[in-house]
Every structure is written in C-alpha cells, then in structure tokens.
C-alpha cells in the first residue's frame, strides 16, 4: 500500500511513529496528482510549492511533539471556498484571476492544526450542478470509470480523495453537493446541520441552505474533521453555539445503545431508480437489522416528492441575489464595454457558464414583481411541510436510512441537455437539505460493473453524533 492511500487516522499514526514524514506523504500525493490529474481533472490549481513548505513546517511540529490530528496531512479544498493567497475560481472564468486575501473559517481551523494544502478542486461553477459538467475548466472524470461523471457539485473533491491524490477534502453541500459525489466516487461525505459549521469565506449560493463539510475515505475520518470544523463563528451569524461533541471519541462510545432506524418508503419506490443500487442498499439494511442494538421500521415522508421543486425555486432565487456581487467590478475578470451596464452584463455573460445563467434567470423571474408569492413564498411554505414530515418521524425513530443517489455514476454528456433529469439526481439528498438536517453518505458496495454505491443516514437537527456513529458501524460491517 502506498502512503497516499492511507486514512487520516492511519497517516496520523504513521507520522507519529516516524514511519514516514509529512514531506514524504505530501510528495506521494503530489506524484499521484501529476500522474492522474490530466485524466481525472480533479484539480484546477495544484499548490505544490506551498504544500512542500507546509509539510516541512508540519514535520518540525511533529519533531517538537506538537502534533495534532491533522498535522502534516495533505488535503484539497473545493474551489468555491476561499483560501488566502491561492487562486479561487469557483470553476467560473469570471473569477479566473481571483486571489482571496483570507482563509474561510473552516479552512483556517484545519490549517491551524498544520494540515497541508495540495490544491483547489474543480466543481460545478458556484456549486450549480450534480455532475461537475458545469465547470468552465472541464468536467471531472470518475476515477472508477473515466467516461463517467464524478458527481457534483463537489466532484473534484470527491475524485481527489477517491483517487488518493490527497487524504481528505473540504466541500460544500447546498442540495447534495457533498453526499452525491461522495456516493458516486465511493467515499464518505457529511453535510452538517445548517448552522453547525461556519460559512465565512464560502462563496454563497443559496444562503438558507448552504453548508460546508468534510469528505474523506472513512466515517471515522469525517468525525475527526467535523470536530475541527464545527462551532460558533462570530463572522457567520447563522452558526449556533451548541457545544461541539468529541465526535471521533463518540464513534464507539455507546455501541450498545438501542437505535431505532426508519426506512422511508418514498425513497425506495421511485420510478427510474437503478435496481442494482436499490438491492445493494437493501442488502446493507438487512445486515444492519441483524445487529442486536438496531431496530428497523418502515416510515413515510409523504412530502418527499416536493423537495426537488421546492429546491429549484428557493435555490435559484437566493442564487440570483447572491451572485449579483459577481459582476467583474471589484475583483475577477472585467469585460471591455462602453458603459457600466454593459460592463456588468458582458462580464457576467462571458464569465459564467450556461447553468449559472439559467439559475440566475429562473431566480430573477421567481423574485420579480408579481411572482414572489406564487413561487418563493409558496416554496417556503411547502418547505415547512417537508420539515414537519421529518419532525414527525423523528418522534418515532432516531435515524433514517436511504440510498444517496438513485443511480451510480452516469456517462459524461448523458444528462447534460436534459435539465430536469439532471435535477432529479438530487432527489434523495435534497429533502434533508431543505429541512437543514445532518446527513452522511457512506460507501456500501459496487455494482457489477464496479461503480460505487452510497447509503445515506439522515439524523435529527444537530445530532451529527448518532449519524456518524451509525455510519462508522456500517463501514465496519
């Protein structure tokens, strides 16, 4: 086994024992990037010099017995998250030359531990998409089959971890952008509860839904990362000050605790769902049912089918407002024009991809005079009913299990021209997003053709602890 294939936990132990140095580990990741990135296209920017510099500092920390969990561990960051002095494009040409002057709070938390940044990852531009085909830097290819998508929008992050180009990555999840690509690439990914992790320095998409979370090879690693990322931040007024549990220590702490797990039937009788995916997830549920502390019951979430239509009103609406700032005036690429209006309109026309413009158009329409009540307000009301669906079943059960995606990785180009088919890729991940709940995707097997399948665990608000506990139980089955 090559050292770049290790988990955070294993790499930490190896660094501690002196089996290898951070410089060696970082070089192993950089070598893998050099070998594979031309095919996979997971990275937009590789920070080789910075990484080697940081690795050397990490090795000194380790030598001085100042090693923390993430010291010396190479990681990547989605390009829609600000990292100081490193180009951050959000995969849109309008930010092709944008270099932030500060770290997002979650990145700062991770870097304070001495983690080593190897690069910024490709994504659907500004997080708009489920296939990574909406990047102006080309699609990310799935490491398991280069003709297929890596999922999205955090596709580069998922592929970079799955292909061992780094040990973990930080992504964003508005509708499913961490969980869906994690599922399609066979890794673990957590969408935290809305308000759990600070979004300061995350390029905003839909502010009432956006979250930032960890992507890694195991749920154990996810727990280690979430512990570092979570917590109140004065710079993000939507963060809650609830205590952050020691997620990694809690993973096995209450292993005898009885868990009642709900299986929402609406997630299994979807038309067009891939049969093999369904079977793999159901087989795993049968295994979980045999555990002495787990009880499985069927539940119903009748408003599930409305989550996608709600999502595709709320998100474009908030998007169209948030992306108003992306106009080529204060930063980014400015188009040549004779007057101010044309500077805005042309910079945006040239620097934003089709899907971003489509969402801005939908959102602008939905929020324009005379339509607000019919669209945005109506969607926010249905959103309440979706939330209440979850609240009701969570009076009866502790956790929910569903498939993460209705199908494994699809072919590049397969859904690109069918807007609605692409939106349906998020059908199982959007409901928890709309309700602000935590959810993790855990790899549970592969199809006969070798494509990964993920299972989603949804928990009560701010109950990342049990979500991660069950995820860890499943990965050890």
């Amino acid at each position, binding site marked *: 086994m090559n050292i770049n294939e290790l988990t955070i936990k294993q790499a930490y132990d190896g660094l501690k024992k002196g089996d290898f140095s951070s410089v060696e580990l970082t070089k192993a990741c950089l070598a893998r990037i050099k070998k594979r990135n031309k095919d996979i296209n997971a990275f937009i920017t590789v920070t080789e010099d910075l990484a080697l510099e940081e690795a050397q500092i990490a090795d000194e920390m380790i030598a001085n017995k100042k090693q923390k969990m993430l010291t010396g561990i190479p990681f990547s960051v989605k390009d829609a998250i600000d990292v100081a002095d490193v180009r951050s494009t959000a995969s849109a040409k309008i930010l092709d030359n944008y*270099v932030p002057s500060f770290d997002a709070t979650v990145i700062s938390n991770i870097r304070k531990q001495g983690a080593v940044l190897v690069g910024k990852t490709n994504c659907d531009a500004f997080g708009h998409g489920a296939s990574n085909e909406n990047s102006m830097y080309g699609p990310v290819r799935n490491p398991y089959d280069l003709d297929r998508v890596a999922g999205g929008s955090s596709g580069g992050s998922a592929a970079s971890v799955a292909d061992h180009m780094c040990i973990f990555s930080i992504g964003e999840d508005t509708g499913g952008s961490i969980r869906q690509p994690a599922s399609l690439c066979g890794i673990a990914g957590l969408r935290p509860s809305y308000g759990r992790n600070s979004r300061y320095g995350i390029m905003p998409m839909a502010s009432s839904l956006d979250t930032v979370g960890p992507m890694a090879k195991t749920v154990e690693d996810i727990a280690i990362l979430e512990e570092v990322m979570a917590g109140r931040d004065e710079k993000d007024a939507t963060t809650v000050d609830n205590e952050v549990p020691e997620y990694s220590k809690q993973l096995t702490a209450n292993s005898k605790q009885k868990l009642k797990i709900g299986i929402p039937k609406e997630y299994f009788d979807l038309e067009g769902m891939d049969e093999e995916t369904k079977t793999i997830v159901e087989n795993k549920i049968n295994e979980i049912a045999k555990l002495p502390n787990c009880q499985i019951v069927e539940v119903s979430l009748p408003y599930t089918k409305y989550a996608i239509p709600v999502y595709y009103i709320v998100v474009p609406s908030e998007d169209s407002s948030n992306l108003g700032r992306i106009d080529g005036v204060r930063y980014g690429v400015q188009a040549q024009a004779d*007057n101010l209006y044309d500077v805005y309109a042309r910079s945006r026309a040239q620097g934003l991809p089709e899907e971003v413009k489509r969402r801005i158009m939908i959102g602008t329409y939905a929020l324009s005079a005379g339509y607000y009540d019919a669209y945005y307000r109506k969607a926010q009301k*249905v959103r309440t009913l979706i939330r209440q669906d979850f609240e009701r079943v969570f009076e009866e059960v502790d956790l929910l299990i569903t498939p993460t995606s209705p199908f494994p990785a699809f072919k590049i180009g397969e859904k690109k021209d069918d807007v609605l088919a692409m939106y349906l890729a998020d059908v199982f991940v959007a409901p928890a997003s709309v309700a602000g709940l935590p959810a993790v995707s855990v790899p549970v097997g592969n199809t006969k053709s070798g494509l990964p399948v993920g299972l989603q665990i949804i928990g009560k608000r701010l109950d990342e602890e049990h979500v991660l506990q069950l995820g860890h139980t499943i990965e050890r089955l």
Partner: protein
Amino acid sequence: MKLTSQEIEHIAKLARLELTEKEKTMYAEQLSVVLDYIEVLNEVDTEGVEETCQVTGLEDVVREDVVEDCSKEARGKIISQFPSAHGNLLKVKAVFDNTDSTDL
C-alpha cells in the same frame, strides 16, 4: 407556461446578463420547462402554513460594532484584485450617465 422573448429579455436585463439570440431561445424553452415542473407545488394545500425562512431558530444575532484594523498587507492584497484602479481607489464607469441603457 411559455415565456415570450420579450419576457426573457426583461428578465435578462434585470439580471444584468447579455444574452445572444440563441441563448434567448434556449432559455425561453428551458425556463418554461422548469416553471411547468415547479407548478406541481400548486397541488399542495398550504393554507395557514408558515414559511420556513430559516431553520436555526436563532433570532436577532448581534455583536458590538467595533472597527478592526486591516493590515497594510491585507489592504494591498484587496486593492491588487481591482480590475481597474486609480491609485488605491477602485475605478468604475460613470454611474450616472444619460446614455446608460439601464433605464427599465
């Protein structure tokens, strides 16, 4: 519901997006498809249901309004990002201009 090309042009103007004729046709079609799909929400009875504007339950989060120092270095980095500058000032095209096409 089919959007007219006039409606598309109006939305694009509000959104500050310069569109080609081809894009106008494409978005007219695609927006109609999406808006039709969203119509499904009308079958849900939301009489008396409150809107979900946020899920944290937090209210009136305030902090002291304190001025923090910005280092010369940080300031320089921000200024270096200006697409067009005049010394340390951000340079923009005239905001008030009679020939401006922003009149809506």
